């Protein structure tokens, strides 16, 4: 199995480097660069051409593209992700400030959504075309339809009117002030969790529906097992694999994809960091973040595949 894991990880290297390269080239196609933004500000005021040339040289932007890319890649190979061109601090530091928050929201939202989704999806499937099914389907399709920023605005509106809520100025760590931290993050977690619960519920419902028609489920019924045993032991166990895939994919997306939620709740997370870095043409930061998100994606996919083998002994890895 270890051999399999190592092989999978090595196979992913080209994709990761490719992703970084695509982003790198994309960022160089953008009109304007960070030197212009630093000197001219967002409005692009008076720009002294000599100063611009000097700053570009200072930031290493005057080197040929391949030199810029490979020197960054060489740094990455030594776990040195470079410095942010905008703030001048190490990219790793900047990320470590924001990663705990993004991870916490992603993990908590995934847990919340899974806890809601699997029971709901299963019930909807075994009671197909009854009112329970219709309610679950409408609520879950609704979850997909409600834009997360609107849900966020409504939640904040509700909190402001009824609880005199104010957006937190600073994020407190989960380990130092667990209670306060939870109070800060519970609303973003719930608003994201509901949306992703909708995705998982739909997946659970359709896979359970498919499995319920299998021969072994009919056999289980014929043996006279109670409904609970048929559903949990025979149907759900077989239906769960695609559901795990979708939970894994969602989790990977949650790390970098929460731009909108972070904006609404003024959270300083990875998603916002990415958007700001793109806006500032801060290439080392963007590349490193893309690498991070892609890595999470790859590792989660690998874990899902390993989980498959553990849950389903028929699957083995060579």
């Amino acid at each position, binding site marked *: 199995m270890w051999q399999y894991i190592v092989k999978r990880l090595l196979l992913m290297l080209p994709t990761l480097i490719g992703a970084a390269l695509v982003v790198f080239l994309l960022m160089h196609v953008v009109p304007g660069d960070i030197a212009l933004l630093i000197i001219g500000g967002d409005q692009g005021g008076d720009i002294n051409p000599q100063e611009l040339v000097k700053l570009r040289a200072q930031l290493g932007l005057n080197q040929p593209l391949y030199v810029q890319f490979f020197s960054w890649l060489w740094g990455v190979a030594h776990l040195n992700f470079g410095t942010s061109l905008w703030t001048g601090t190490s990219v790793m530091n900047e990320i470590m400030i924001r990663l705990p928050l993004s991870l916490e929201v992603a993990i908590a939202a995934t847990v919340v959504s899974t806890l809601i989704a699997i029971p709901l999806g299963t019930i909807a499937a075994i009671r197909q075309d009854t009112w329970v099914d219709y309610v679950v389907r409408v609520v879950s399709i609704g979850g997909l339809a409600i834009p997360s920023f*609107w849900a966020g605005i409504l939640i904040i*509106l509700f909190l402001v009117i009824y609880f005199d809520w104010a957006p937190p100025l600073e994020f407190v760590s989960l380990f130092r002030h667990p209670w306060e931290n939870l109070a800060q993050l519970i609303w973003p977690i719930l608003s994201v969790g509901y949306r992703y619960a909708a995705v998982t519920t739909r997946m659970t419902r359709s896979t359970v529906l498919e499995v319920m028609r299998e021969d072994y489920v009919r056999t289980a019924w014929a043996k006279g097992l109670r409904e609970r045993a048929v559903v949990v032991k025979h149907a759900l166990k077989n239906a769960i694999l695609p559901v795990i895939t979708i939970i894994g994919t969602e989790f990977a997306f949650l790390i970098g994809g929460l731009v909108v939620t972070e904006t609404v709740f003024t959270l300083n997370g990875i998603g916002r960091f990415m958007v700001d870095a793109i806006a500032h043409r801060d290439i080392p930061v963007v590349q490193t973040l893309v690498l991070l998100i892609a890595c999470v994606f790859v590792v989660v996919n690998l874990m899902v595949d390993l989980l498959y083998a553990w849950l389903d002994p028929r699957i083995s890895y060579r």
Partner: protein
Amino acid sequence: MAIATRPARPGERPQALPRHHAWGAIGKFVRTKPLGAAGAAIIVLMALTAVCADLIAPYDVYEINQQLQFTPPSLAHWLGTDEFGRDVLTRIIYGARIALFIGLVSSFLGATGGAVIGVFSAYLGGKTDLWIQRLMDILLAFPLLVLALAIVTVLGRSIPNLIVAIAIPVIPRTARIVRSSALSAKENVYVEAARAVGSSHLRVMWCHIVPNIMAPFLIILTAQLGSAILTEAALSFLGLGTAEPTPSWGLMLSGGAPMYAEKAPWLAIFPGLAISLAVFGFNLFGDSLRDALDPKLRHRT
């Protein structure tokens, strides 16, 4: 285009009254798929609103009237007015145009692009397939919204660029699914037969592979429509999509709405409701369409 008539199968009554037949089909759809029918009704309503916006909108979309700033919902302004005194209902009505236009064009472009890539990738196979799939993997590694955001930043803020930015993330998602359908279609004997009688590769792809991928293509297209509307709203909300004074639902929620939410909650509520309703309609319809077209789910007990 004339309505296609098919020869009656044995045991089937000839279609003497095609109009009745059409109504019967709609009636059957409503009875067997009530949720899908509800979705279709929402879509039709939205399309009508978009087309007839000039007729039904009570006010001018762009008219600014500072005296009417933040008028609460009333008989004159059913959904109130915004910080510039513009009628919210009027802007929501015109917003249906923007949402439908951007949603339709971008998901059609994205799904078609993905389908073309998927069919070529599956049909050509070998190294080409491998390289195309790696490229799709790279695109898939980005969260949808982040990719769209990056593209809009690169291209600049305009409606055509917005459409491209929403369409591109759809491509790898469609390409994957279409490729797997096309792979199994390629194995059919008639594909080999078509090649044997001298059909060109393009002809084989168009006449024998493409009909086989229409079902997944349509499913993805409808599924993407809702998500395209959401992406447009999110980008506009973040200030990277449509620009003022375009009446876009996402834009109506950005800037002013959260800031004045306490004072004028209608500004925060109604545009969001419009987005949710539209996406809800497309998703309901798309779901039923999938149930109807997906052979795996068709024969339900």
